[in-house]
């Protein structure tokens, strides 16, 4: 007869789970409210979600650095805390974008908000663990919720996007599981730190198998981060999702992916497995360059931003490849700055969303022509959008310039001068497509009949969020230093 399993509550250390529990309980709460009283307004759910995320953020700050818990699968290190802060900040900025002045179908369902909170919890699990299985659970929870959120936009293209993303995501999940299996076969463990330990003790005896495992992992993470050649779903999915959600997708799933990539690849890079570094080097350069070149020929601003975000992801992946503390800290700095700017840019698209008006041949929602002559009609809007574009292009002193500066500096400091030059040239290439939008807004005349559609969707909350993003984009230089201190302390504390 088996002994009854007894686990003391103390050893579970449930405090490590608190942030995710807040999100999950909050989501269930929203569902319960809907059961009790139907047809409550979206404003209620939006504000409830913001409050839940706020409590969640408080719980994150309450966590102790270096804690492990829940059968030791949870790992609260600096990376986990930092990335959860990014995820929650982005989510808190995203959810109020639901308060549009036009009515959009998806926000009338409370399920939207519940799913959203489940997704946030999923991402939080993903970053706060070094157990391959828990990472997988987090990844799938988040992804499944995200597919549904995309489909809820309820247009033909949204369904296409959701299905496409789902199929691709399933493939990536398959790769991930295969990779994890190989590592388990090699070492008998699914804990990353144990895998690293056993591999380095054995001196990477079975290199072929390690190669296979890493290849699977690169493919799986490549899908999530939309690295070339696993990027093909990105533009279509972004196009099908609402602009706000596309902006969210370009920031949050990626930071979760970066953290996982950092955990998985860093242990190999630090054990001098040279070819992992080489493979990543090639992937980084190809992702940056190819995405930039494809972005040059896009006719739709949203698709352009999709390719641009692929290119930015490639840029940041370089930091993981370099692998120094400075590089990893620069990654977080870059992504925090990118968060505000990119979300701001997508929010501007969201503001200009117009259900009835069809532009050009009607193929795209946001073709460049739509923004022609915006300076004459909406000068403030045009200047704001131009600020975001200049910042994305890396024109100083706007926010992303500082991110680029730190990553390029990290590259230079580790003797990757060629890589730094490639980054510089890519920034110059990318300037062209960002300028293209500025050219349309400032240098062209308004299109026929000059329909003033630009700000149709604007409401006070949206304007506030955009104003907030503009403020951080313009005055980023003042925030860089304190942010850098904070980030590098946390990154250093977790040993990356």
């Amino acid at each position, binding site marked *: 007869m088996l002994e009854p399993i007894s686990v003391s509550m103390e050893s579970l250390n449930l405090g490590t789970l608190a942030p995710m529990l807040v999100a999950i309980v909050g989501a269930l709460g929203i569902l319960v409210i809907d059961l009790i009283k139907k047809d409550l307004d979206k404003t209620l759910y939006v504000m409830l979600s913001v409050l839940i995320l706020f409590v969640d953020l408080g719980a994150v700050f309450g966590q102790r650095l270096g804690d492990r818990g829940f059968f030791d699968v949870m790992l609260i290190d600096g990376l986990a805390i930092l990335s959860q802060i990014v995820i929650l900040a982005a989510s808190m900025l995203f959810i109020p974008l639901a308060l549009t002045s036009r009515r959009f179908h998806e926000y009338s369902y409370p399920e939207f908000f519940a799913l959203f909170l489940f997704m946030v919890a999923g991402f939080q699990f993903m970053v706060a663990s070094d157990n391959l299985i828990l990472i997988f659970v987090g990844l799938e929870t988040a992804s499944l919720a995200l597919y549904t959120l995309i489909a809820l936009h309820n247009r033909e293209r949204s369904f296409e996007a959701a299905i496409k993303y789902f199929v691709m995501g399933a493939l990536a999940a398959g790769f991930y599981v295969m990779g994890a299996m190989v590592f388990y076969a090699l070492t008998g463990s699914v804990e990353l730190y144990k895998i690293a330990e056993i591999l380095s003790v054995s001196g990477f005896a079975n290199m072929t198998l390690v190669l296979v495992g890493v290849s699977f992992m690169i493919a799986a993470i490549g899908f999530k981060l939309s690295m070339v050649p696993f990027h093909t779903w990105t533009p279509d999915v972004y196009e099908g999702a609402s602009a706000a959600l596309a902006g969210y997708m370009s920031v949050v799933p990626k930071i979760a992916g970066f953290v996982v990539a950092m955990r998985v690849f860093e242990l190999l890079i630090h054990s001098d497995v040279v070819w992992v570094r080489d493979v990543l080097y090639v992937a980084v350069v190809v992702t940056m360059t190819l995405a930039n070149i494809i972005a040059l020929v896009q006719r739709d601003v949203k698709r352009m931003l999709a390719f641009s975000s692929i290119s930015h992801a490639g840029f940041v992946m370089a930091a993981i490849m370099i692998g120094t503390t400075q590089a990893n800290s620069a990654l977080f700095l870059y992504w925090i700055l990118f968060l505000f700017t990119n979300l701001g840019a997508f929010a501007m698209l969201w503001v200009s969303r117009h259900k009835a008006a069809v532009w050009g041949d009607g193929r795209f929602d946001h073709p460049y022509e739509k923004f022609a002559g915006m300076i004459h009609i909406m000068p403030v809007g045009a200047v704001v959008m131009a600020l975001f574009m200049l910042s994305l292009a890396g024109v100083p*002193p706007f926010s992303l310039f500082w991110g680029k500066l730190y990553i390029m500096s990290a590259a230079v400091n580790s003797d990757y*001068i060629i890589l730094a030059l490639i980054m510089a040239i890519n920034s110059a290439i990318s300037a062209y497509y960002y300028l293209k939008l500025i050219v349309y807004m400032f240098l062209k005349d308004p299109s026929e009949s000059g329909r003033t559609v630009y700000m149709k969707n604007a409401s006070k909350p949206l304007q506030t969020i955009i104003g907030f993003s503009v403020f951080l984009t313009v005055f980023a230089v003042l925030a860089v230093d304190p942010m850098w201190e904070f980030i590098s302390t946390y990154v250093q504390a977790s040993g990356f």
Partner: protein
Amino acid sequence: MDHILSVLVFFPAVAGLLGFVVSKESIRAYGISVAAIEFFLSLWLWFSFDGSYPGMQFVEVLPLIPSFGISYYLGVDGISLFIVILSTFITLIGLIALSIEKDVKNMIVSLLFLEMTMVGVFVSLDAILFYVFWELSLVPMLYIIGAWGGELRVYAAIKFFLYTFAGSLIMLVGMLVMAYLYYQATGVWSFSITEWHRLILPMNYQIWLFIAFFIGLAIKVPMFPFHTWLPYAHGQAPTIGSVILAAVLLKMGTYGLVRLPLPMFPDASVYMIYPVAVLSLIMIIYTAMVAYAQKDMKQVIAYSSVSHMGVIVLGTFAMNPEGITGSVFFMLSHGIVSGALFMLVGVIYDRRHTKLMSEFGGLAKAMPRYATIMGIMVMASVGLPLTMSFVGEFLSLAGFYQISHTMTILAGSSIILGAVYMLSLYKKSFFGDVVHEKNKKLKDLDGKESMALWTLVLVTVWLGVYPKPVLEPINTSVESLVSFMHKKAMTDEAKSVIRPTVIKREAE
């Protein structure tokens, strides 16, 4: 006033922001008043500047990102002082003569922002701050060329932006490497240019870094073979855009050469004298020939501008006090003369909406006052003694004569070639009979145009006859720069090429 440099930098920007509130009818007066105040502030700077002290004055330091050594670090010396005054002066003159009617408010606001970036570049002593203003200056110029330019304006504006942006990103990588080397040597991060000057680097580092900086700066100058963006930018830009571009923005490149690579990498600079001199010679002679072949007045002046910039680069790379002082002075005179010439072309373009020389002829009869000023400025551009250009051109070439006789004689042909294309321009458009009916009834210069242009003539002649008040502070700073470079240089070759006169003077 301790913060006069900060005031100089940010006053136009703040004024530009407030300018959004000013009504359309009064915006012109607003712009001129702001530019005038800024100009008088810069004169005050000159007045309180100690011309006998060679180092940085009015220094302001405020750490921006202390952990990475980036600070808000401003200062001015004899080299930058007059370029700052040139920027404020040209902006003021340009605003007075501004003839644009369309969207005049946007134009004036962007000009004021442009003024901030121009002054900012010339007074920043932190590499990152320098870079910030350097890049930021592209944005208003992009808008000015792209929104008010000619038919190909969008193409020209984007070409201008991308060329400079790509070049300066390479310079940024150079800056990061430099900062890292500084960190390795001292254990502290710093982007301060004056600190970097004190770092002595091995030769191979010097050469690579020199190339990185040189590419970024050369595209702006623009050096051959990176000059192709300039004719488009000038050809398409509105008058005010060309004036500012030629008078001030190009000077950023040559000023950068004096401020960054020369004192930072003296050995590499000496090593690179001949390659750079050959490029400059090609630039001087080739673009002068191209200028002669142009049919469009503005293109002639644009190419002549490139040709003269070649002389400036040559003077800079003479590496001796005469050459560098001459090239700095030539920057000023070129700013004023080419600014005036572009303005003059703008005057005739406003009246006839064409710049083709074949459309004119006999303008001297129809517009005598216009022809007088044009004549003076053409002479100044050619380098006639008693005009400002003569002083600068002569000193630059005299400086380089110590490096290479043949090259200097070849470069001296720029004066002859300049006379060929400028005088033929003058002959074709101003002498002879009035062929076109339209040209007979052309209005001569009006009040604001006369005022702007006569001021420029006055300055050209004044500083041509008596350049001392400007030349002396420049010379003081340049001499200390050269003797610093001499002390810093490691190789004997560099030490023998960089010959300071200060030592001689101290011995007396």
